[in-house]
């Protein structure tokens, strides 16, 4: 069969899975007075449609910032405004100022779900297809398999179509950035990334690799000549895009400061709910939140984050190739997730995106990471009533990705690039590290299944009501930490060119 039909079938299948998940409940369904992210998005439509731009980020009589005040960058606000105009056409009640608060209905749910699907179809899915066909290696069939596996990643589907958010837009724009940079159009790539950054400030997690990749490229071309020209071009693009996005707020510095203040709520503490990062896991042993002052926490987390991303960024700067870029994206966003300030459990989607791009190269670790990331959000899914889609999509993803990418056949030490471990663990007894990894994978998947089962069916003891969410986040944290190390080692130690040459010879 022709490629186009296979790809269309994969995309249709991905879309079907997405819409099927969207038939389920969303966050805060029928839970007044605050509801959840679904209501937040609806509320933003209401606010942006009815209020003038300069009131969007300010607390006024018509805009109570304590009730889901806008705290995403301007592009999100514009997107809400666009959706609000469509909503107004269909049913004005949906965006009525004040009166529409907490509005829930069959029709409205359909409308909201449809907006997610449209955005996904326009931004994320084309980027995935383009990435797989132009930037991943292998036969056409392998590329089609990659498309399917990336599209079936459960974390993104469940958060966007179950819980309700528009991550496919910010992640999709970032992916467009990667794709376009990979194809060699540096200016367009930086444009796409700036747009993504202006949709969701969490995209900062990806910003350093983009910066280092482009800067590294400029260095490579020679800062005295063409490199400088490129640097200027990129800098102008970034500044102009930023300016255009922020145009309505530029007239008044007070506006800018207020928006920035809304985007980075420093006062909210090191972490909130249970999240699978260092601080929350460390909190089990040491109560950091009470020992350290907020400022100290901020500096402390900033320092550790910077330290954690430094090695991969420097390596990328020295060697700006696509392979290094992808790994640096993983390492940087994962380090941010693990060490930075005010992280949400959903932010794991940010490292998950570049890991999806590695599915083709390092199947087993990538699948492992993606599965762990979905698992880490289990408490959230349970709260939203998404147990059935969580179980089904996770199993389907595990099955399809392992089967289609033949993950277990790619388990040799060479393929997994475990060489450096061998050198590090010189004193260890001789054993096949590939096989050890496989067994660890089996064990971890079983443990995830067991923990999921316990979270659903067992009641926690009275003195430890948060026992299961905590276990879930600590267990996922261990995965993330281990994989952060692994991806860093792969990025820094492995010179991909020589390995490829060796493999070519052995073939």
């Amino acid at each position, binding site marked *: *069969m*022709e490629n186009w*039909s296979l790809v*269309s*079938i994969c995309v*249709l*299948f991905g*879309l*079907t*899975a997405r*819409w*099927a*998940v969207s*038939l*389920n409940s969303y966050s805060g369904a029928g839970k007044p007075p605050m509801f959840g992210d679904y209501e937040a998005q609806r509320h933003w439509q209401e606010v942006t449609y009815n209020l003038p731009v300069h009131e969007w980020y300010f607390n006024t009589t018509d805009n109570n910032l304590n009730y889901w005040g806008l705290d995403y960058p301007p592009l999100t606000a514009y997107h809400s405004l666009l959706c609000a105009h469509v909503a107004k056409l269909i049913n004005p009640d949906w965006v009525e100022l004040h009166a529409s608060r907490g509005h829930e209905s*069959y*029709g409205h*749910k*359909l409308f909201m779900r*449809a907006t997610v*699907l449209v955005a996904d179809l326009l931004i994320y899915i084309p980027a995935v297809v383009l990435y797989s066909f132009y930037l991943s*290696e*292998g*036969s*056409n*069939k*392998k590329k089609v*398999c990659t498309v399917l596996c990336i599209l079936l990643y459960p974390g993104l589907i469940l958060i966007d179509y179950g819980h309700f958010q528009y991550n496919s837009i910010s992640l999709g724009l970032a992916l467009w950035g990667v794709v376009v940079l990979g194809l060699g159009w540096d200016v367009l790539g930086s444009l796409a990334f700036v747009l993504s950054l202006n949709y969701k400030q969490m995209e900062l997690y990806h910003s350093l690799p983009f910066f280092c990749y482009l800067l590294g490229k400029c260095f490579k071309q020679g800062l005295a000549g063409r490199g400088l020209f490129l640097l200027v071009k990129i800098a102008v693009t970034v500044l102009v895009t930023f300016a255009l996005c922020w145009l309505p707020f530029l007239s008044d510095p007070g506006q800018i400061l207020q928006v920035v203040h809304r985007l980075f709520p420093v006062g909210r503490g090191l972490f909130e709910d249970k999240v699978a990062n260092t601080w929350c896991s460390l909190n089990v042993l040491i109560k950091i939140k009470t020992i350290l002052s907020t400022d100290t926490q901020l500096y402390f987390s900033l320092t550790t984050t910077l330290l954690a991303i430094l090695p991969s960024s420097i390596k990328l700067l020295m060697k700006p190739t696509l392979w290094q870029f992808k790994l640096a994206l993983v390492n940087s966003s994962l380090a941010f997730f693990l060490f930075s300030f005010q992280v949400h459990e959903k932010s794991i989607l940010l490292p998950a995106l570049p890991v999806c791009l590695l599915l*083709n190269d390092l199947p087993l670790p990538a699948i492992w990471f993606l599965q762990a990331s979905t698992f880490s959000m289990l408490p959230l899914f349970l709260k939203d009533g998404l147990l*059935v*889609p969580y179980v*089904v*999509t996770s*199993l*389907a993803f595990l*099955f*399809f990705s392992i*089967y*289609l*990418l*033949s993950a277990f*056949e*790619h388990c040799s030490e060479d393929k997994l690039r475990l060489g450096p471990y061998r050198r590090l663990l010189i004193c260890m007894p001789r054993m096949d590290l590939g096989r050890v990894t496989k067994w660890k994978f089996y064990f971890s998947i079983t443990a995830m299944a067991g923990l999921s089962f316990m979270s659903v069916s067992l009641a926690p003891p009275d003195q430890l009501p948060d026992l299961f969410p905590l276990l879930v986040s600590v267990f996922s944290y261990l995965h993330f930490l281990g994989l952060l190390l692994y991806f860093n080692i792969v990025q820094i130690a492995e010179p991909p060119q020589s390995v*490829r040459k060796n*493999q*070519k010879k052995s*073939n």
Partner: protein
Amino acid sequence: MCYLYVEVQSVLSIPPRLIHRGQASVYDTGCVMATPRADDWSWFPALALGVSFLKCILINAYHSTDFEVHRNWLAITHSLPVSKWYHENTSEWTLDYPPLFAWFEYSLSHVAQHFDKEMLVVQNLIYTSPATILFQRLSVIVTDIVFIYAVKECCRSVREEKGSKDLLGHPFFILAALLLWNFGLLIVDHIHFQYNGFLFGILLLSVARHLQGRHLEGALLFTVLLNLKHIYLYIAPAYGIFLLRSYCFTKDNTDGSVRWSSFSPVRLVALGSIVISVGALSFGPFIAMGQLPQVLSRLFPFKRGLCHAYWAPNVWALYNMVDKALSVLGVRLKLLDVAKLPKASMTGGLVQEFQHSILPSVSPSITLICTLLSIMPAVLSIWCRPRGARGFLRCLVICALGSFMFGWHVHEKAILMAILPFSILAVESREDAGIFLMLTTTGHYSLFPLLFTAAELPIKVLLMLLFTLYSFTSLKKLFRGSLLNPLETTYLLGLVAVEILCEVVYPLSPWQHTLPFVPLLVTSVYCSLGVSYSFIRLYVSLLRQHGTDKHKQL
């Protein structure tokens, strides 16, 4: 090394230029493993599991009243003695399937009680707790294992040309995908809610047994099937004649006609005893209790109308349409008096009779005669010139389609009875593939009104596109070339227009409130054209084969 390389290449038939393309070579070892070889069948569980995941994810989708029908049957069979099963009428959805299906529900109910006991109380009407939904949905998904097994057996019996192709181009792979991922079955069973997968599983298994020459097993399976759901009586003539002609008579004359002397009484007795013993097992207890008339009156409710609320796309839909058009024309031309016309009700959601105003009304006996006439040539043909199990399969499809076209109170879902067995023929012959594409696409589209809720609209459209795209591209690849003529293609593209008109444009128009039934009418009339056309082409192909056979003998 070089030898291995060539071998790998031949297994996968990767064009050499792909392998030689420099840097890609390292990763091509990956693709070798990513694409399983055709002969190891590891792809089959993958295909089946994949569709099972899809079914599971639809658990929370809309379900029709059939969900309550089956819940009610669970409750009846679980909490009442056998003697009351066919008398119970607390719910309007009384038990109207044959006894073996009631026993099937009875055995399911023993598992059901571990999910939620309340669903097994007859008085709990329209009971839909989450546990009930989960159980009922899972019961359909799990019993589909029968279907999956049957599909595998069918795929094994498919004829295949020699030649190394890649996996996706093998007829058995295409057949497995067409059957397992069948759009109609997915939406009827896993959204609308019914147990067709398991029943069609038995039918296909029986067909596969005939293809494999294991006729007694095939007959047994079909008898069991008849006692599970009596709608399969439609295809019983094909079975009866085929078994009598090709199993009970062991030899043919040189011209292919029956050799009367080769009749084998032993075989007839064996067949008869199978039919009678299964029938006795199923209906025996009710005969003993003197309830046979009651059971039969439940199974064959002739009080229902000629057409279902939504007209199945068959001859009667066209007939109704012509009648309607004539009456409108008559009123316009002042030939008819509006007051004298019977109030033709086509709007209702209830099962009621449609009165014709110009054309004569149709009675059940007329539909029966028409049905018999329509299947007669096919049945006669396998009596005079049996063409083995494949001839039988073609006859079976014609029987199913003939009774769909002319039957009394036909449901649109009955089209699956023709589509599913026809899939087997479609992967074996080019002409059948063309008819198959016409029939499946129209037949599947005619199922759209089953799911009328807005939330399921994207699901049905996406799944339909998925299946249609796959069936077109895979069959086209298999037979290397276009399978439809321009007229057929135009007709099928017209379905897109009909869909947009009926589900997007019309609901926004003012007529939605005054004439709400028009989209259904348009859908069923448009689809009935395609189904009728496929039926005629199927007949032509049968008669042409008949002709060429005769020609050969001359």
